[in-house]
């Protein structure tokens, strides 16, 4: 299983590195967000000290990066399926879970590299966080990418049509993003909106990273965020693996 995963991972990574521009393109949006929206937001939260404002804002951008860097990978597997690559692999003895995990781990690596670059850019803007907080944040980002890419591959193989995939993703993304407290902390929201946001798993991730940046590595927020992500990862990988296994 490990050897199979490594083989799939190497193949996919090599394909990604063949067009490294796309990895940089993925960074463009969050960096623009950091540069053009960050100063605005930190000003809006003027009653907080500037340092704290960036600690509130950057976790949101990280989650956004992870969300957008992950959910569209399913389009790639539709293209692979159409080229006959998925069928060919499924007739070999290669582990079906490895077919998913090799791809997912490549994506996790790409998102982690993007997140590390983003954090490096955020420091000169005013982000202050300890090494432990940064590492924990990257772990959360990685787990989130793992879950969402597995889900996206599963959806891609189940739908097998870009035309069906695009509206599904767009419909899901907007509310997930707005209700995650990416832009402003959900504590500022009216009660009904706040209650609604409790159903959004990424809200807990944003809160966990905020808490980690504040230096509170063992806080309830961190534990809760971790638990939510582990549960999500198990569900999504289970679903994704099932679609690669299915005989249809």
């Amino acid at each position: 299983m490990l050897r199979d995963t490594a083989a799939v991972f190497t193949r996919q990574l090599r394909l990604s590195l063949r067009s490294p521009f796309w990895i940089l393109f993925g960074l463009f949006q969050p960096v623009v967000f950091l540069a053009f929206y960050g100063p605005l937001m930190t000003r809006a939260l003027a009653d907080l000290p500037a340092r704290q404002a960036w600690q509130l804002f950057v976790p949101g951008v990280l989650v956004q990066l992870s969300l957008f860097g992950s959910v569209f990978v399913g389009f790639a597997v539709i293209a692979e399926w159409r080229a006959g690559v998925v069928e060919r692999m499924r007739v070999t003895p290669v582990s079906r879970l490895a077919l998913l995990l090799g791809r997912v781990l490549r994506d996790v690596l790409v998102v982690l590299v993007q997140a590390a670059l983003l954090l490096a850019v955020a420091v000169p803007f005013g982000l202050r966080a300890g090494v432990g907080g940064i590492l924990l944040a990257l772990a959360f980002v990685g787990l989130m990418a793992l879950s969402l890419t597995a889900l996206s591959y599963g959806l891609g193989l189940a739908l097998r049509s870009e035309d069906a995939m695009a509206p599904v993703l767009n419909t899901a993304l907007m509310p997930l993003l707005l209700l995650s407290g990416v832009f402003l902390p959900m504590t500022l929201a009216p009660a009904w909106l706040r209650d609604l946001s409790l159903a959004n798993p990424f809200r807990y991730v944003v809160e966990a990273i905020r808490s980690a940046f504040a230096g509170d590595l063992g806080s309830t927020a961190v534990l809760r965020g971790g638990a939510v992500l582990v549960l999500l990862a198990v569900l999504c990988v289970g679903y994704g693996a099932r679609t690669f296994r299915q005989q249809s």
Partner: protein
Amino acid sequence: MAVVEARGLACTYRVGRRGQPVHAVRGIDLDIGSGEIVGFLGPNGAGKTSTLRMLTTLLRPTAGTARVAGTDLLGDPAAVRRRIGYVPQGGSTDGGCTVEEELRFQAAAYRMDRVRTRTRIEAVCEQLDLLDLTHRRAGSLSGGQRRRLDIALGLLHEPAVLFLDEPTTGLDPHSRANLWDHIRRLRAESGTAVLLCTHYLDEADALADRILVMSEGRLIAEDTAENLKTRIAGDIVTLELDDAESAVPLLKALPLVREAAALGQETLRLTVNHGGQGLAEVVAALAGRTIHSLQLVPATLEEAFLALTNQDA
């Protein structure tokens, strides 16, 4: 020894939750001997692809049993996968990967060790004329080259049986002829059995030892191309002679003549078995009469196929 032995293999599915059941394959018996090339024919929707997908573990049969490469298809699909090769219709490679990368991945998927990986890649590249192309990206290959890569991938692990799904669709005549040579050499050199799914009857005629014809989910014929042609189509003889009509009863009585009809005062059309022999018989029977012209058109597999599948339509 049979490499594929299917009994009552069937696949039924429903379109939508309350849809009518669709019987894609209605219980077929199918055998392929080792080293045999079997042509698999049938109109679109006949159930060929479903059959192929069942035998390659991609689709679970809803009834029946099969042994593929010595292993129970339903009981141990993983073992079946180790011993079969599959070349899907319409390609199987990523345009961004080089020929060598694709072959190396395939070797890893079959868990080959380093030495076997190297020797097998060399062997299939040699066998399929890919040696000069190993560093080219699959996306930059010509249609014929890319198809040869697909086949090389299917053969890398020396499978007991190779499933080829429409291997020459979309290729120019040159590449087709080239690929045919490769498929023929395959049996000569490695004794791999091939199930060749195709719409090109000349392809099946040229390559297959035996032909299976499928229609509406059933196998409706199974024989050599030669026998199918004689049995179902027959060779056509056209004769021109004076007073054609009067010769009909005489010719109909001949053992090799299946049908005889006058197409006008001076023209006769006969369907005969074993063209050459039948023709000699006809000419002998007409001794004393003046034959103005004589034409023999050998039966084609196409006629046999159309005759077979039209009965069902």
